[in-house]
């Protein structure tokens, strides 16, 4: 301990060796929310619509994240000859069960009988993956939902007709099939997952870049700000959609290709807001005080200014997320999105447009997309309410 401090403390009447208990008690960990955050949480909950939207969205999101356990063309677990198998995670070659394919087709009646004879297996509630084609639909694809048909009709293509063990609820097409005989519900669940994940990843990445860029511009100002702002003006003038069309003509578009191209343009969304907050904040007296203490610029930006900018950023985020999701959907709809065959909501809409005679395609796509976007907007509104400074201060 600094000797000067010890002396000062003794002069001031302190027992240096035995400080008071409450004086040295470790600060409480950040478990307790600060009063301002408590008030924000309260404001968030007060917006009932947003609060419920968050719960509904979370349930849907978790279900979609567990898509392989909900709707899949392979069992979750199986026991075969006393061996515990997890087909969800492991691709077993078919020769294990006496077949010849490299990857087992569990929907094949021969494999099913083989496993049933030497063990058992547990199927997910829906026995289709987004790729699996239902060869047993009674009507040429696109087929309407199974519940619109009676049992006779539903089972007409199975080898044993209505008596066939595979003609059960697990093999129903709850929302019908698309024009290639794939289950719409399965494609919906996987499509929802990829949309939300894509949106979240894009939002997160563009926020990080946008906040960093806005922070640097706002904090340093001057030439840095001027040049950066002009660059952004030029950059945003590039039409993103055409660029993607051009790029997709010589690159196979995939998740990461699309992600990179969209990220290159979406990061500018937050720059303006964050820059404004930093421009405003850098003249606050507590920033001057920190500078006078000798705190370095990156630390000032991180510890003192960023929390100010976070309010505006968090308010914007749900809307950026929505924007990202609809961009992906739009690209898929136009056929410039995810590679052919991937589950995607945009592709479902495109099929709906091409197959007006099969309204379940378009209606399902429309309902799911509008539900997802509405839920996110409701959550966004509640977040905005929660961070409204007029409600959370004073």
């Amino acid at each position, binding site marked *: 301990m600094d000797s000067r401090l010890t002396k000062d403390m003794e002069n001031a009447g*302190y027992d240096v060796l035995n400080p008071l208990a409450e004086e040295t008690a470790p600060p409480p960990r950040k478990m307790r929310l600060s009063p301002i955050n408590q008030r924000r949480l309260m404001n968030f909950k007060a917006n009932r619509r947003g609060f419920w939207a968050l719960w509904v969205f979370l349930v849907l999101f978790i279900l979609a994240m567990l898509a392989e356990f909900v709707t899949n063309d392979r069992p979750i677990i199986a026991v075969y000859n006393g061996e515990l198998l997890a087909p969800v995670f492991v691709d077993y070659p078919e020769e294990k069960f006496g077949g010849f394919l490299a990857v087992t087709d569990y929907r094949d009646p021969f494999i099913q009988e083989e496993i049933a004879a030497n063990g058992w297996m547990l199927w997910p509630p829906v026995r289709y993956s987004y790729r699996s084609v239902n060869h047993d639909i009674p009507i040429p694809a696109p087929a309407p939902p199974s519940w619109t048909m009676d049992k006779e009709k539903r089972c007409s293509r199975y080898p044993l007709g209505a008596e066939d063990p595979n003609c059960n609820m697990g093999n129903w097409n709850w929302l019908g099939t698309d024009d290639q005989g794939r289950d719409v519900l399965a494609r919906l669940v996987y499509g929802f997952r990829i949309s939300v994940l894509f949106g979240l990843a894009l939002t997160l990445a563009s926020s990080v870049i946008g906040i960093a860029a806005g922070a640097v511009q706002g904090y340093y100002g001057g030439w840095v700000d001027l040049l950066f702002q002009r660059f952004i003006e030029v950059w945003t003038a590039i039409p993103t959609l055409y660029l993607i069309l051009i790029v997709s003509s010589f690159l196979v578009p995939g998740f990461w290709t699309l992600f990179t191209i969209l990220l290159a343009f979406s990061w500018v969304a937050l720059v303006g807001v964050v820059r404004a907050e930093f421009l405003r904040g850098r003249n606050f007296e507590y920033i001057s005080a920190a500078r006078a203490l000798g705190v370095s610029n990156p630390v000032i930006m991180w510890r003192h200014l960023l929390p100010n900018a976070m309010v505006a950023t968090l308010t914007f985020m749900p809307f950026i997320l929505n924007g990202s999701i609809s961009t992906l959907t739009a690209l898929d709809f136009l056929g410039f999105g995810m590679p052919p065959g991937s589950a995607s909501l945009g592709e479902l809409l495109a099929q709906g447009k091409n197959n007006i005679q099969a309204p379940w395609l378009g209606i399902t796509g429309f309902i799911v997309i509008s539900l997802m976007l509405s839920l996110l907007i409701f959550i966004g509104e509640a977040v905005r309410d929660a961070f409204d400074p007029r409600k959370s201060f004073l």
Partner: protein
Amino acid sequence: MSENTMTNEPLLSVEDLSVAFTQSGRETLAVDRISFDVRKRETVALVGESGSGKSVSALSVLKLLPYPTASHPSGRILMNGRDLLQADDGEIRKVRGNDVSMIFQEPMTSLNPLHPVEKQIAEILKIHRGMGDAQARTRVLELLNQVGIHDPEQRLNSYPHQLSGGQRQRVMIAMALANEPDLLIADEPTTALDVTVQAQILELLKDLKRKHGMAMLFITHDLGIVRKFADRVCVMTDGKIVEQGPVAEIFDNPQHDYTRHLLAAEPKGQPPATDTEKPIVVQADDLKVWFPVKRGFLRKTVDHIKAVDGIDVTVREGQTLGIVGESGSGKTTLGLAILRMISSTGRIAFKGQDIQTHSWKEMRPLRRDMQIVFQDPYGALSPRMSVAEIVGEGLKVHFPGITAEERDRRVAKALEEVGLDAATRHRYPHEFSGGQRQRISIARAMVLEPKFVMLDEPTSALDMSVQAQVVDLLRDLQKAHGLAYLFISHDLKVVRALANEVVVMRQGKVVESGSSEQIFDAPRTDYTKALMAAAFRLEAAPEGIVSV
């Protein structure tokens, strides 16, 4: 004092008035059953510290509170025998700006920045008197003349930002007077102004009141103003009027403890004795801060704004150098330049070492020894950090080696030293009062055990009684640690209590400098004399010596 104070019937009569604010279901009583009268041609002062409910009471008279968040559980406000609290929107609008008008504290934000002076004043005439353009213009010119604006024709098309603070307040007064109200409510009309301008504005208000025979309800925290300008005074604290009566009676024979406390709250005590033997901590020679004025396409520098223009400063260990001057005189710029927070030219030496050429990085180790305490106790503390984090931040920078427990102990000690309970250090700044926040600011500077502290108006945002406490605290800390202070203030009473040397600045230059006794007791220049007269006797200087 007006001779007919006692004979008149009341013009405004506030009876049993309460004001409550409801927020998220909780009701707080801001004003608790107050009663007072304002008679014709009389000036009544409402005195109290911030949060005492004086402004809220005044705003209730014109129903300017945010209803329905605000409500009046009890009371009547009788104006010419009519209850204003019961009046509907249409009726109260006829009273506002007509029978009763109001001037506010902050003349910059009280005027619409997008409208020229003529439009702002003419608006009221057109609304209440139905005047046409030409008629209104004549009346506006007449009013501007009355409130002492020079060349009113020239000023008609000026926007608020083209006027000085004093001129803006004059325009506000012109607006308030436009319809010759019976009662003028003045809510701290001079608090945001320099002392010299304050004296002028008070003089003007007094003059106008006599000419127009208005009554005035004057809200202030400054007892000096009350003593000089009011006929009667109501002392408010915690939403209650604890004492009221004629000014002379209250000042000579205060009955209530709180009144006595207020009257005793002037900053007192003696500055440290001047001792030229003490080592010099900070010295600056011929310090200049010039901001270039750039014009034209190539941004050529055509002129400079000379914020600080060739100033010599010497601060010794354990001594205080006071820098006084009106706003815009360059005193804060001078302080920031000495601390190398902004660039300047001229020699700056800290403990004999020339620091003018130091880079920002080379300055960092020295920052431990030179600290700043800022004016605004609300703006100077990051609202998202706890007090322990705020005070401990400097320790993290300058003592990176010490443990978290050690840092915590030093923070606790610094807080105890400035008179705060160390157990409160995990709270956030918004839970503290203005005075406590200023103590936290001081603790943040003191925890690093600096040699030199620049105090930039550390008391001007605080209430009188808190000011006196902070002054005492600063003096004690100086004595205990042998600190060198550079004390910047426009408040001469505080400077007199703290500084042993004083520099009077005006427009970036030194007007007069010397020992504190000499400057205060025997000022040599007209400007310093005018400053002293305005600060201590609220006397307006003749034209030409001080700014308008």
